[in-house]
């Protein structure tokens, strides 16, 4: 019997049909999961909230553990933004993070593509050699980097800050893995259609790994934006500092000006937030696809 044949009293009403199914009561496992997620969320958000809170405090209130300032002020923001040094650090960080990001996106993907799509003797050895550099910690590399910079005359310059990060083993590995998902038929079809290898890489392969490129761009940008150790070592003049290096120097020998550091840090999160908001759908997809943690 169809619904049309039913007596009116038995027919399902539109309201009944559209009503949400009754919600099942949450079990204990779900409650614990939600609680842990909530606590995790609090732990992630608290430093940001505390950073913003401190940036709105007067110096005498900084060591009070209260989230809401007693006398909120934007004096710190005025001071930092009017201080010419912060402007330079911000520009330096933008230039360094942008150039290294573009360089990584181009060169890591070129190497990754070559290792993935070209068959040549020693290919595996080259790949393993690149991967093995991931096991060397930065702390071990800074002295050779410093000596290289010194001999090349790159100390206290953009080149000096940027050169160790212009290409990364991680980026090469990430891109190689993503290029594995590009079917060889696409490459061969383009070859038959008359494109040279560089054109194939740029026109066919690169658009197909956009999520990986976006993820790599975010990883590299954030990594360089927050880099501290190497920029601290290679720079001497205040004008060449990056934001993290510059902020660490706020204050004097007797005291650290936490309210100014937090103000600078709050301002410096803006570019990273913008980058993340623009590319977040790519980074989530990219991380899931690569099976890597961000």
């Amino acid at each position, binding site marked *: 019997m169809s619904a049309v044949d039913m007596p009116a009293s038995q027919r399902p009403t539109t309201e009944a049909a559209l009503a949400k199914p009754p919600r099942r009561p949450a079990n204990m496992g779900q409650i614990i999961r939600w609680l842990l997620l909530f606590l995790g969320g609090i732990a992630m958000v608290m430093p940001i909230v505390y950073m913003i809170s401190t940036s709105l405090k007067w110096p005498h209130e900084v060591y009070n553990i209260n989230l809401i300032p007693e006398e909120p002020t934007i004096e710190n923001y005025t001071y930092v933004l009017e201080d010419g040094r912060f402007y330079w650090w911000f520009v330096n960080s933008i230039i360094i993070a942008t150039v290294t990001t573009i360089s990584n996106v181009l060169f890591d993907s070129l190497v990754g593509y070559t290792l993935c799509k070209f068959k040549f003797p020693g290919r595996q050895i080259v790949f393993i050699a690149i991967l093995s550099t991931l096991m060397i910690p930065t702390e071990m590399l800074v002295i050779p980097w410093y000596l290289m910079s010194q001999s090349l005359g790159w100390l206290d310059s953009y080149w000096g800050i940027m050169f160790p990060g212009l290409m990364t083993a991680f980026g090469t590995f990430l891109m190689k893995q993503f290029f594995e998902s590009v*079917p060889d*038929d*696409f490459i*061969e*079809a*383009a*070859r*038959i*259609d*008359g*494109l040279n290898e560089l054109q194939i890489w740029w026109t*066919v392969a690169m*658009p*197909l790994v956009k999520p990986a490129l976006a993820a790599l761009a975010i990883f590299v940008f954030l990594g360089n934006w927050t880099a501290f150790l190497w920029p601290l070592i290679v720079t001497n003049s205040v004008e060449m500092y990056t934001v993290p290096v510059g902020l660490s120097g706020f204050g004097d020998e007797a005291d650290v000006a936490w309210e100014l550091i937090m103000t600078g840090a709050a301002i410096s999160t803006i570019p990273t937030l913008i980058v993340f908001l623009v590319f977040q759908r790519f980074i989530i997809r990219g991380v899931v696809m690569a099976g890597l943690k961000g």
Partner: protein
Amino acid sequence: MAELSLHQLTKAYGKTEVLHGINLGVADGEFVVFVGPSGCGKSTTLRMIAGLEEVTSGEIHIGGTVVNNLEPKERNIAMVFQNYAIYPHMTVRKNIGFGLRSSGLPKADKEARIDEVAALLGMTDLLARKPSQLSGGQRQRVAIGRAMVRDPSVFLFDEPLSNLDAQLRTQMRLEIKKLHQRVGTTIIFVTHDQVEAMTMADRIVIMDGGHIQQVGTPEEVYRRPANAFVAGFIGAPSMNMLAAEAGPDGVRTNAGGSIAMPLGADFGKRAVTLGVRPDDLQLTDGEGLVAGTVAVCEPLGPETLVHIDTAGGEVVAKADGRHPPKVGDTVRLIAAQEDLHLFDADSGVALSWGPRT
């Protein structure tokens, strides 16, 4: 358009040779289908013609020129791949026009050529769409369009229909055949499906184990198979093969049936394989060539495939779909003399075909 020929073509990966001296001539405008089981070397041969695999030895000629050392783009060929290989980030228009990027044509001419090909394939309304918005058949048409737009000397198709469902495959088969009749370009088409080979080809090249087993028209390879492999591969269901002994006067199967065949006085007594197609076996009340019990019936509508257990193994026959035998029935089967094929029991080489053509 151009003729194509292969001379003693071999291919080896390391020390393993997978193609063993292929010789073939393809006439200008001919539709040739390479068919064979997986691993027989048909796709490797096609990829060597395309320039995607290096030639180990031998020569490939296209339009009279040796192309062994030419890049794929210099061979003036176009290829349609099994998974279409149309770029998901480009519209249909861009996909079709992709092959013209390095043609040096003015933009207006390129656009006109794309429109012309799209009209030929009935895709004018789809030019602004992305591949994800197309059906399987439409994607296949885009892939064909991309190949056509360059007006190549030779079209290469690498199992282009194997990703389509049965109905669409039949439809595309017909469209490709019509297209060939319209444009007349030389086509090399690779498939493992013998029905595709039979229905589309001017000539079929049957391959196995890196060797060409037979080259011929569909009628020739079906009626006069060169060996037991070709006989078993071409035709569905496969030809029945019965162990037998042949002499000057006829053939006696190892299971006991016999049939008179004037094979000639110089035909020495020897072990043979007797081949007979399911279509050529008839139910009989008299003494048959083979006898057995019906094991399975597969109704196909107009006819029924009957699987019969005999002393010589399973035999498949076709029966009238309206009055098929029942499972468990004992049946006897007979075939006309001219429908029997004899193959050497050891080498599989054909010894005799029925005269029917």
